[in-house]
């Protein structure tokens, strides 16, 4: 029975936490470069309409980031609490990159994001841009170190066993691990497609209603068009490059178990739900990327429809509606043409989750391939405690994820005027028009 098996519960809980976390992380990584670029151009030109765009996408970024942090905290702590067997043996190798991540990436990212949120009216535009630059760089730094850790599980390298504990012997091997480097590039390019198609979907929604006075959404489609021509190819390339280590024994194989023991463990551990999940993940991922690979490069076809300049041919074919028409809905057929973009983000999200399920189930029954089984990695816990923890965190995560997505949809639909970072009008906030200096009583 599933509910009485702490191992099954702990595994399900971690899978659920990681999947939820990645849904939000992917959008964080995907939106950050676009916001950074837009804010850079806005600062360079002193362009108000681009700054509105930064406030709009930045609002969505923050709502999404909140849930990314919440799930990330739970994930880090859960790794320590429920899977202490990994740390016991592989703390110095597997968790060392995570230690670096928490200090050099997350610590800095969260602090500078606070500076960015509270610095809108308190610092110069270049200082404010610098804050977001640091946020973007550390977001990618975070992804890098996490994938160094994750790659180690798949392809453990660079250590020797001393009294049953793995001691790092070659840090270079750890950071040049092909299972980490290609996974990082694969994940990063995949996240960029998530970002590009979310931008495309939100932009299409507003363009279909003819709401684009500031050009925010025309630029969104343009960004997405460029990204979707380049990124799917890279994603598929870096994904394929990872297959080189499939079926290959890690170089450290044999340090913990002999070849016969490994064969016995692998023979007894396969099958069931994990195999089904593995196959499903594989199929979903491959199908979604194939669709994006072939259809992504079609997005530039939207550009002439949205061009602000209406040339001779445009007029003759009834294409480009021209700038004056962006305050009312475009022609019906343009609305229909934009409709597929509305649902397009489903593809990269499905592909990402499918890809992670495939990657993580692929190394079962091992948690560290050829060294530690998932069952041995778990903290001993009572079924009741495991069930209580599983129930609470699953429920809490479901509620929080639903709330976050509801908010994201709502803010995306409201547009640049209604976002959480939108400039407050004086009449909307009665307290803001009387800026009295705070009085300290002490």
């Amino acid at each position, binding site marked *: 029975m599933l509910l009485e098996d702490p191992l099954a519960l702990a595994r399900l809980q971690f899978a659920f936490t990681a999947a939820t976390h990645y849904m939000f992380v992917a959008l964080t990584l995907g939106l950050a470069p676009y916001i950074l670029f837009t804010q850079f151009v806005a600062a360079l030109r002193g362009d108000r309409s681009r700054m509105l765009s930064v406030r709009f996408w930045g609002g969505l970024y923050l*709502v999404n980031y*909140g*849930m990314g*942090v*919440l799930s990330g*905290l*739970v994930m*880090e702590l859960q*790794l*320590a*609490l429920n899977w*202490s067997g990994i*740390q*016991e043996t592989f*703390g*110095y*190798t597997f*968790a*060392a*990159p*995570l*230690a*670096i991540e*928490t*200090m*050099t990436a*997350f*610590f*800095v990212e*969260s*602090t500078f*994001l*606070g*500076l960015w*949120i*509270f*610095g809108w009216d308190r610092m110069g535009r270049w200082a404010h841009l610098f804050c977001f630059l*640091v946020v973007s760089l550390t977001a990618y730094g975070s992804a890098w170190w996490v994938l160094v850790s994750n790659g180690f599980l798949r392809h453990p390298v660079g250590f020797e066993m*001393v009294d049953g504990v793995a001691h*790092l012997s070659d*840090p270079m091997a750890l950071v040049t691990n092909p299972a980490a480097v290609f996974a990082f590039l694969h994940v990063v390019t995949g996240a960029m497609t998530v970002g590009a198609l979310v931008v495309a979907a939100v932009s299409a929604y507003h363009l279909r209603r003819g709401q684009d006075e500031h050009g925010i959404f025309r630029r969104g489609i343009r960004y997405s068009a460029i990204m979707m021509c380049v990124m799917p190819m890279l994603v598929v390339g870096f994904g394929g490059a990872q297959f080189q280590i499939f079926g290959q024994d890690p170089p450290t194989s044999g340090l913990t178990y002999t070849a016969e023991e490994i064969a016995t463990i692998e023979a007894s551990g396969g099958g069931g739900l994990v195999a089904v999940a593995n196959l499903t993940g594989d199929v979903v991922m491959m199908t979604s990327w194939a669709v994006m690979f072939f259809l992504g490069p079609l997005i530039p076809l939207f550009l002439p429809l949205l061009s602000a300049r209406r040339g001779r041919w445009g007029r003759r074919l009834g294409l480009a509606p021209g700038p004056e028409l962006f305050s009312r809905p475009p022609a019906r057929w343009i609305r229909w043409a934009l409709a597929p973009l509305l649902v397009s983000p489903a593809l990269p999200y499905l592909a990402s989750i499918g890809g992670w399920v495939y990657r993580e189930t692929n190394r079962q029954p091992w948690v560290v391939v050829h060294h530690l089984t998932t069952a041995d990695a778990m*903290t001993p*816990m009572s079924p009741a*405690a495991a069930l209580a*923890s599983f129930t*609470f*965190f699953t429920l*809490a995560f479901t509620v*929080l994820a639903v709330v976050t997505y509801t*908010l994201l949809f709502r803010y995306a639909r409201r547009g640049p005027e209604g976002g959480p*970072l939108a400039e*407050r009008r004086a009449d909307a*906030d009665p*307290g*803001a028009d009387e*800026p*009295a200096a*705070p009085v300290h*009583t*002490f």
Partner: protein
Amino acid sequence: MDLLSVPSPSALLLALFVVGYLVLAGADVGLGMLMPHVARSPDQRRRVVASIAPYFLASEVWLVAAVGVMAGMFPELEHLVVARLWPVLVVLLAGWLLRDAGLWFRARVDTPRWRGLCDTAIVAGSWTLAVSWGLAVAGLLTDGLSPSPFPVLCTITVVCLFALRGAAFGAERLVGPFEAESADVAARATRSLARFALGATIATVLAAPWSGGPSPTSLGAAVTLAVVLAAALALTSGLTGPMFSRHTSALAIAIPGLLVASTAGLPTSGLPGTTAVFVWSMLLPVVPVMLLGQVWLYRMTRRPATGATFFA
């Protein structure tokens, strides 16, 4: 091996992150606990959240870093902490999640019911965090939690220290543009909380030699720290206002962290050289950026924002 006799740089780093967390997050967790007491009107509650909001992100990263250091550099210690405190840590995590969710979501829906729900999450989460920290400190000072007076009194003391830190912080930060009622309430609370905390500290020290109490590796360090704590609290209980309590409450809440670090005899040795060199060589170049961010944020938000921000 304890930190005072062999302070390896990595062990000091871990202690720094834990103590930094207690001092910085103590302020916003403590104020979250006191919200029902210091804020009565919707605007006052908004101001409490607005005071917490600039700091909670920048202070919880200290704990995340501590967990990272513990996992990557002291796996033996982590194993011990998890084995001893699994239920406490799960509850701590649940409280943390609840509290942060309340803070992130509060300003997102503009109805009194939603704000009430989020405020409840913030208050309940803050209390859960403080109580879990009390239990964690007690569990680390003794050999695991036992049903005896010391863990209970130790928990009460730690909870009081969190509340005191929050009151001192609130007395400074809750000054509104037109009135300072909640700041005054918080300022008055520092005195009574300090007295109560002093009583709890003395009771904890008296309970220590009995069964279920701690067995410090260095009695001298433990006594010195307890005396410093009592002195800081005595100083706070004689004064009102945030001027001194800001510093004394920070010193007071650092003591439980320092006590655990120096007298609990936690296993913080055996870090292999290669891992240490690897982590430190990645960490050192980033230290200036970490400091810049923290100092910049605290300086920039010295004056509370007058208008609405992302969080409140």
